[in-house]
């Protein structure tokens, strides 16, 4: 594969750069025994002929640069050999070819040199990418190269990046004014690595300042502070987003419960396993698409949505018909029986799909993300899940408030005998409502399959959390569940920044317990079957 790509690159370059050849004298030190000299040679090569150097360095990085006698050659596919200076194929291939081995230090230099070279690419996207990479490890050696790139660069965004990189590189300059200038420019960055870079300038080693010039030191301090402000802002924004996305997952897990527990008053400990059913549906659709519709594999998730909903709803309806129906009004027994169902479903999954987690891949269109700030990337899969949970929420609200089924559900939960009297088929409504709640759990499972492990035990991890959401939000209200889920999600993520994930979770649980003690009335805003006589 690598070889193939190399060959392709060589051919392309061969066409564009055939006219220019590199001075073979520049190439020779690349094969030197001394690493320092080889690195110097790489830099010299880059500076002298930025465009022609690329294939050579690439070949070197991929261990296909070799020495044939005095001549530096590139080894191609199928034993073909090219001259590194002129890029012409050597026929017949010379004998006694010896690959130029490189150590890690040289490899690092090669990588940054290659990145730097891409600054001269004709494509803007490539240059943009390269400018970003250069930003991450610019040093003094690259200065001349950066100057050249800046001179040639027209695009304002890329120029800004390059200027930053140049400033980074000139931190090592011996001229204090240059350093001062560089430090000030760097103050406009919002990259945590730049802060890391500036930090030593304000520190002492032994009794001496690392930075001798006090003006530069002061400027560095100011720059660090302004970077830190920007960083904190982006950090908080990032946490808020991950919190939001955690919240939306909690919401998806809890929305189904909001119907079965919140509205119907059924404690369903097997709720997590309904999520699992949804997640396995996604996996199953992926397998089906892979086997029969490989071309449309990216769209398996769309098919998984209805399948996940229906299969979880079917399981829910069966549960309601066989077990839960006989336990209405006995919440503690319902709790135990549904726990039994959850054990049963877990073992079914284990028997059918194996005890190991199955692999569910994100479709291509969910890969990557939106970069809001240099240190803030919002992954597409999270964004899509937030959007998805909003859609499910809206749909659920509409079903409960606008449809006839929703009206019946509300009627039955408010006054069962009266609803029965006016002709609402209460038994069937119970089944349908439970099925709806289960189906929504299934949707949650489909969403979860995109970001979490899919396995027989996956449901167990969500059951405590989702009950906490419903309990915290107050029973019987969608809005409560929404706020509780989002609030819990964001709060947990911010807390994690302070304390780490496990402690954050413990603290959240303890806080919920305390909160419920303080405000039990939020808890006891009960409707329907729970009304105390």
């Amino acid at each position: 594969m690598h070889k193939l790509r190399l060959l392709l690159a060589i051919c392309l370059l061969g066409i564009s750069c055939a006219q220019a050849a590199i001075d073979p004298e520049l190439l020779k030190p690349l094969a030197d025994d001394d690493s320092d000299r080889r690195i110097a040679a790489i830099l010299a090569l880059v500076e002298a002929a930025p465009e022609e150097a690329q294939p050579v360095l690439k070949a070197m990085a991929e261990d296909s640069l070799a020495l044939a006698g005095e001549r530096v050659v590139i080894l191609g596919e199928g034993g073909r050999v090219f001259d590194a200076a002129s890029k012409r194929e050597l026929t017949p291939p010379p004998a006694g070819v010896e690959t130029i081995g490189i150590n890690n230090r040289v490899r690092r230099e090669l990588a940054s040199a290659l990145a730097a070279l891409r600054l001269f690419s004709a494509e803007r996207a490539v240059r943009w990418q390269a400018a970003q990479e250069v930003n991450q490890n610019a040093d003094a050696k690259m200065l001349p190269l950066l100057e050249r790139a800046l001179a040639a660069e027209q695009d304002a965004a890329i120029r800004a990046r390059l200027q930053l990189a140049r400033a980074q590189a000139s931190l090592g300059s011996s001229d204090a004014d240059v350093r001062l200038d560089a430090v000030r420019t760097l103050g406009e960055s919002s990259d945590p690595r730049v802060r890391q870079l500036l930090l030593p300038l304000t520190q002492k080693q032994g009794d001496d300042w690392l930075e001798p010039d006090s003006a530069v030191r002061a400027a560095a301090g100011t720059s660090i502070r302004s970077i830190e402000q920007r960083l904190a802002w982006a950090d908080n924004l990032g946490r808020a987003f991950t919190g939001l996305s955690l919240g939306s997952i909690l919401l998806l897990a809890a929305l189904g419960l909001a119907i079965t527990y919140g509205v119907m008053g059924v404690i369903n400990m097997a709720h997590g396993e309904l999520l699992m059913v949804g997640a396995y549906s996604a996996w199953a659709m992926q397998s089906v698409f892979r086997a029969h519709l490989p071309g449309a594999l990216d769209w398996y998730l769309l098919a998984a949505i209805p399948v996940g909903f229906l299969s979880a709803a079917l399981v829910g309806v069966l549960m309601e018909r066989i077990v839960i129906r006989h336990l209405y009004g006995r919440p503690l027994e319902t709790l135990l029986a549904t726990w039994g169902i959850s054990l049963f479903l877990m073992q079914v999954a284990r028997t059918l799909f194996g005890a190991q987690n199955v692999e569910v891949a994100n479709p291509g269109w969910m890969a990557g993300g939106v970069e809001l700030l240099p240190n803030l990337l919002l992954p597409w899969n999270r964004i899509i899940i937030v959007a998805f949970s909003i859609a499910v929420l809206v749909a659920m609200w509409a079903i409960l408030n606008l449809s006839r089924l929703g009206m019946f559900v509300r009627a039955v939960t408010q006054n069962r005998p009266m609803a029965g009297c006016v002709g609402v088929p209460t038994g069937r409504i119970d089944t349908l409502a439970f099925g709806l709640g289960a189906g929504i759990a299934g949707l949650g499972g489909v969403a979860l399959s995109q970001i979490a492990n899919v396995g027989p035990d996956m449901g167990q991890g969500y059951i405590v959390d989702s009950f906490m959401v419903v309990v915290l939000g107050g029973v019987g209200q969608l809005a409560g569940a929404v706020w509780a889920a989002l609030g819990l999600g964001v709060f947990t993520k911010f807390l994690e920044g302070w304390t780490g994930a496990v402690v954050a979770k413990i603290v959240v649980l303890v806080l919920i317990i305390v909160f419920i003690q303080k405000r039990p009335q939020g808890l006891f805003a009960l409707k329907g079957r729970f009304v105390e006589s």
Partner: protein
Amino acid sequence: MRPSPARTPFIVRLGASFDARGWRLSGLFAAFALIAVPVMHLALPADHPLHLSTWFITLVGKILCYAIVAVAMDLIWGYGGILSLGHGLFFALGGYGFGMYLMRQIGRDGSYQSDLPDFMVFLDWKELPWFWVGSDSFLWAVLLVLVVPALIAFVFGYFAFRSRIKGVYFSIITQALTYAAMLLFFRNETGFGGNNGFTDFKRILGHPITAPETRVVLFALSALALIGTLLLARYLVRSKFGRVLTAIRDAESRVMFIGYNPLWYKLFVWTLSAMLCAVAGALYVPQVGIINPSEMSVGNSIEIAIWVAVGGRGTLIGPVIGAFLVNLAKSWFTVSFPEYWLFFLGTLFIVATLYLPQGVVGLWLRLRARRRGKGAAAGEPPAAVAKGVGA
């Protein structure tokens, strides 16, 4: 309760909690545990048909501890109507409390030959954390077992019952509590061995912990603890306290309006129940040889409820029978058909709640009543009538 002469010494009244048949059964059981088991395990050669293997003693000893937990659970659930999903926590805390002592008894025989327990050496700790102070004393360990879980139960219960959290809410909150504790104990920094918990015990009170004699003594202690638990529970449920407790279960507001404060009644039985669990946990750990945070998992606590439900809530012998039935089935399944155990347990949960509201004891009583004809039915119904028990 008919009037009885006042000023009977308490110990006599406690003893009178068991009727003649109860004492006969307890005596038989005690004789089995204290005489028959040691003889059959120690004196008989291993190939003798009546020889009891180490495996048997460990298994039954373990189940005896579970039975204590089941009775404790029954006190709070069957009689108090409060379903706790946090009893695994108290059981584990008792186990950890005693496990600290056992860890210290290892001394320098651990794999790092340090005075500190191995996991602390592994974490590069230089000295014992403050809460380990005194853990090398047996009496201190006993005190820890009795006090710490009780204190946690008391504080938690006080706030929960004062806020009138009941029914399913209470269950869910106890579950969250247990879950939080499990996460806490999984952390290495908490100071209880993280994932691995405590294991590789060597000695107890200077005696080698795996010696047959030690096992037999631990077995006998578990049996005595079970008899003691049953006696205490029997006394409680027959006392006025027990009647108030069931009254709270059935009609809490009525109880309040005739002047009882349910808070203290619930709190007493809840704390007592937690203490019994802790004692069971402390007896369990030396017999099984390990304690780790998975004992606090959500599933474990719910499983306790199913022992009680299968045996029969609101009776005292029911939970013991349930603990034995379910755990014997578990050890049989996990050896013979490990993949079917969860199917069986899941089905058991469903069947027990749907078809056995009074458990096997209730079933047996019903069958007996039917056989004796209708006349006997009005006699003494099981303490918990189906109505109102779980609500």
